[in-house]
């Protein structure tokens, strides 16, 4: 691009001093010009840019030839689906998550199988745990980015101009993110569960029942996707990618780390609660068997806890989006 010249504006030429007759202060507000000359000043300027034409008779308004139908939540969902699949961070975070779940799950199983000792009565499905634990970080990152990147880039203003209903925007984002991560996590946890149980076939006395399978696949996937929703809510609250990701890492890791410093009898209850309700521990509950003697939340309880936490955070995010300027 080159330097544009000053456009030749007819009524203004090299001024030296202002005219003496001009009022010094701000000019009084002139009354609105009665029926200003619409379009008259631009003969022949109306170029063929657009399908619609002005109705004969001047500025009575413009009517678009494109049919109008009322936008719904489904339109917002379609829009969010386009958004999430058209940025690279989605592919990267979910791709790495899948690699972690499959890679670490497979590695753990081959190591255990290679020992050719008796693995006792632990569940072969539990070998999927470590991969998912690391994969959580990717899912949480994607959850945060789904909304914080819009605040970071200014896209949120475009989004809210197109859909001023904050609730609909948040619902559509949550729905699309939740379903996408749930499906991807389900496929990878399902695959690794089958691989691990095949590799360890006959090496363990424990044979997982239908509920154990369901918890290790559907349960884990629901839990991980809900945790991602918590990340999305935190992203909407903080509006800052790095800040929100850091907070979420703190939520995942800090209770465990803190418990290491809680020595002494007085704090033993706190330490116990910190460990039992920490996210890694709750995740492990989905893989636990009777023999593991879990003391914290067991069965499907961690999912209900996480759903409750995410719901509260999303309500907060909605309130924040409604109250604060975009």
């Amino acid at each position, binding site marked *: 691009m080159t330097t544009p010249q000053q456009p030749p504006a007819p009524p203004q030429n090299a001024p030296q001093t202002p005219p003496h007759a001009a009022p*010094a202060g701000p*000019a009084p507000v002139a009354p609105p010009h009665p029926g200003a000359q619409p379009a008259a000043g631009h003969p022949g300027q109306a170029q063929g840019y657009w399908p619609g034409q002005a109705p004969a008779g001047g500025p009575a308004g413009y009517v678009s030839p494109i049919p109008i139908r009322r936008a719904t939540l489904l339109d917002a969902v379609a829009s969010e689906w386009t958004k999430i699949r058209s940025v690279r961070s989605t592919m990267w975070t979910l791709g790495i998550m899948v690699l972690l779940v499959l890679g670490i799950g497979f590695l753990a199983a081959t190591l255990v199988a290679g020992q050719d000792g008796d693995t006792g009565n632990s569940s072969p499905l539990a070998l999927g745990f470590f991969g998912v634990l690391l994969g959580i970080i990717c899912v949480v990152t994607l959850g945060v980015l789904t909304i914080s990147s819009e605040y970071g880039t200014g896209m949120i203003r475009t989004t809210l101009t197109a859909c001023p209903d904050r609730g609909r925007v948040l619902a559509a984002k949550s729905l699309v993110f939740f379903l996408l991560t749930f499906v991807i996590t389900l496929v990878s946890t399902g695959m690794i569960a089958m691989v691990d149980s095949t590799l360890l076939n006959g090496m363990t006395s424990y044979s997982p029942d239908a509920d154990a399978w369901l918890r290790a696949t559907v349960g884990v996937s629901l839990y991980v996707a809900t945790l991602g929703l918590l990340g999305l809510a935190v992203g909407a609250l903080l509006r800052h990618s790095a800040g929100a990701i850091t907070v979420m890492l703190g939520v995942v890791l800090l209770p465990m780390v803190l418990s290491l410093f809680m020595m002494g009898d007085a704090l033993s209850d706190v330490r116990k609660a910190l460990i039992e309700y920490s996210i890694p521990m709750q995740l492990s509950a989905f893989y636990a068997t009777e023999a593991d003697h879990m003391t914290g939340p067991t069965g499907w309880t961690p999912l209900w806890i996480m759903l409750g936490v995410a719901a509260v955070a999303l309500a907060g995010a909605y309130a924040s989006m409604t109250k604060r300027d975009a």
Partner: protein
Amino acid sequence: MIELEGLTKHYGDVRAVDHLTFTVRPGIITGFLGPNGAGKSTTMRMMLDLDHPTSGTVRIDGRHYRELHDPLRTVGALLDAKAMHGGRSAYHHLLCLAQSNGIPAGRVREALDTVGLSSVARKRTKGFSLGMGQRLGIAGALLGDPQILMFDEPVNGLDPEGIHWIRNLMKGLAAQGRTVFVSSHLMSEMALTADHLVVIGQGRLLADTSMADFIAENSRSFVRMRSPDHERLREVLRGAGIDFAPGAEGALEVAGEDAAHLGELAARHQLVLHELSPQSASLEEAFMRLTAGSVEYHAHENHRPAAAAPAPAADGQWGAGWRKKGS
């Protein structure tokens, strides 16, 4: 039709927008003029329900923006050229906007053609120049073929060809009967495009007038005369029934007479003149006088003689601003 009533926005102690009341009518281009920091962008954000007014209301065809079912079908807005995710392609950026308002996906191609970005449709917007970002923002505004269009400083970052293009685009849109509301901090730009002018300074309404009236009132020309025999010059002028006013450094300023006539008059009276120069005040000066006292960011250098109007570092600011924004 956009109606603002008592629109006010405070950011802490800053009164960004202060009781603005005006109407933007269809079929014409309404220019929204004010120095940097005057509150133009803030006003536009409130029109789109992005920022909440401290008090006052904005009605779009009688309704609040929030009540529009398909906002992009009613209002198209270009706020910030970079209000997009850099990792997304131009095509997908527009596609997600179209989908959110139930606009047929075919419109995306049309809008890209209109702004001349078809060849980079699949490129990620991160690599776009400011001008390309501006064009993509305009494509987003045109996507829903809306009745109302709002552009916040659209010529920023455009090259001369692009500036010419956007002017014609806006004129074409207004000629179709649409409401076009465009902001700028450049009087020269407004003089070329706007039919109606709304001027604000420090958030307050300073003028709401047709462009024609503004030009008629503010682009008055005069002749500056200077003579070593100051008193006799005054007598001669008085004798000929010509009104004058004292100018800078002992000069006299005469409006409504042409320089040739005044020169002949002086010759007839054998009066020595040291200066006889026709002057015309520019619209930019009129604008600066209007907004003097309400300019947010003063430049530090003072290019003007002390006797001149208290307009802030005018020459440097205006010329430089134009060139900087356009390059």
